[in-house]
C-alpha cells in the first residue's frame, strides 16, 4: 500500500473542506491513492460540526469584523477556532477497509499517529476517547471522522499555540454570565506544543510528517488537476454558501 502525502499548504476554510471532499471522491473512485494531507487555514477560521447550529455556536458579527471565515464541516464534533499560525491540521483519506470497522478503534489508530508525532518532541500524549488527544490531562488535539461511499475521512488539529481569549471572542457560550469562568476553565484544560516545551511550529510539522508516515510506503504528491477543479467547484457551490453553513 502506497500512501500519497500532500505537503502543508494554506487555503481558506471553504477550499480546505472542499479539498477533503474532492480527495475523498477521488479515493472512492480509485483515481487517487490513500492520502495524508497537512494544511493550514488562511485566513483564520471557525469550523463547526455537521450537526451544530451556526447561530448557537459562532458570533458571526465578531468573525466578520475580524476577517475570520466560518465553515460547516462534513464531520460531526464541535466548533473549532483554527488560527493560521496556532495549529496544524491534517486529514487522512483512505478506503474504510484499511482501518478497523469499529469507529472508536479507527480513531485510536489514527490518533496514535499523532501521539507518536508528539513523542518525537518528547511529549507524552494519549488518546482520550471519543476523539481527543490529551497531554497531562489537557487537550492538545481534536479529531473528527466521517465514512461515506466506503471512504474514511478523518481530519483534526494539533495545537501549536493557543489564544483562548481570542477563541472565545469568536465562539458563543451557552451562558454569557459565566463566560469569564468558562474561559478560565478552558485555559486550564487546553494546552499546546509551544506551551509544553517551546518547540517551534516547523518542528511540530516535521514530527507530524514522521509520526504519520513511519512504517508506511509513501510518496510526496500533489492534488491532481481533477481534484483541484472539483474542490474549487465544491468550495464555490457548497462550502461558502449560506445554505450549507446555516442548514441547521
Amino acid at each position, binding site marked *: 500500500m502506497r500512501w500519497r502525502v500532500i505537503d502543508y499548504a494554506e487555503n481558506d476554510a471553504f477550499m480546505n473542506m472542499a479539498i477533503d471532499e474532492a480527495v475523498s471522491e477521488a479515493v472512492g473512485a480509485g483515481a487517487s491513492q490513500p492520502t495524508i494531507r497537512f494544511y493550514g487555514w488562511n485566513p483564520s477560521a471557525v469550523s463547526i460540526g455537521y*450537526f451544530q447550529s451556526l447561530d448557537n455556536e459562532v458570533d458571526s458579527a465578531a468573525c466578520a469584523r475580524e476577517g475570520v471565515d466560518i465553515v460547516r464541516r*462534513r464531520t460531526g464534533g464541535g466548533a473549532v477556532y483554527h488560527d493560521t499560525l496556532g495549529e496544524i491540521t491534517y486529514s487522512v483519506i483512505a478506503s474504510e477497509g484499511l482501518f478497523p470497522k469499529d*469507529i472508536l478503534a479507527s480513531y485510536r489508530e489514527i490518533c496514535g499517529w499523532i501521539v507518536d508525532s508528539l513523542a518525537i518532541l518528547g511529549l507524552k500524549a494519549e488518546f482520550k476517547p*471519543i476523539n481527543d488527544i490529551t497531554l497531562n490531562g489537557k487537550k492538545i488535539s481534536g479529531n473528527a*471522522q*466521517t465514512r*461515506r461511499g466506503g471512504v474514511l475521512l478523518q481530519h483534526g488539529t494539533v495545537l501549536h499555540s493557543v489564544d483562548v481569549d481570542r477563541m472565545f471572542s469568536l465562539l458563543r457560550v451557552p451562558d454569557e454570565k459565566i463566560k469569564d469562568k468558562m474561559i478560565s476553565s478552558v485555559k486550564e484544560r487546553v494546552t499546546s506544543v509551544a506551551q509544553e516545551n517551546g518547540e517551534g511550529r516547523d518542528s511540530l510539522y516535521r514530527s507530524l510528517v514522521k509520526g504519520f508516515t513511519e512504517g508506511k510506503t509513501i510518496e510526496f504528491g500533489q492534488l491532481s488537476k481533477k481534484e483541484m477543479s472539483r474542490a474549487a467547484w465544491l468550495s464555490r457551490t457548497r462550502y461558502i454558501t449560506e445554505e450549507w453553513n446555516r442548514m441547521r
Partner: protein
Amino acid sequence: MMAQEKISGGKLVCIEAHAAGGKAARVKITGDFFLHPEDRISSLEAALVGVPLDMGEGELETRLQDALGDGILIGATCRDLARIFCKAVKK
C-alpha cells in the same frame, strides 16, 4: 421548546421542538455528537415529528432506535435523545 444536555462521558445534545395540537410539529437535533451516516439525522428528527407530547421515554427511545437502524450514534444514545426531547416538550 428547547432542552440541552451535556451527556456524561459524551457530547452536547440540544433538541428544539415546536408543538401543534398536542403533538410535536417540527424537531431539530443539534450538538457536537457524531452520527454515521450523517444524513440519518433526518430520520431521527422525523421519528419525533407527530408524536404526542406526553409520549413516554421508553416508547420514544424505541421509535428513535428504529429510525437509527444500522446507523451509529457516538457521544449520545437514543435513550439520551428521548430524555432530552421529553425535557424540551415539558418546558
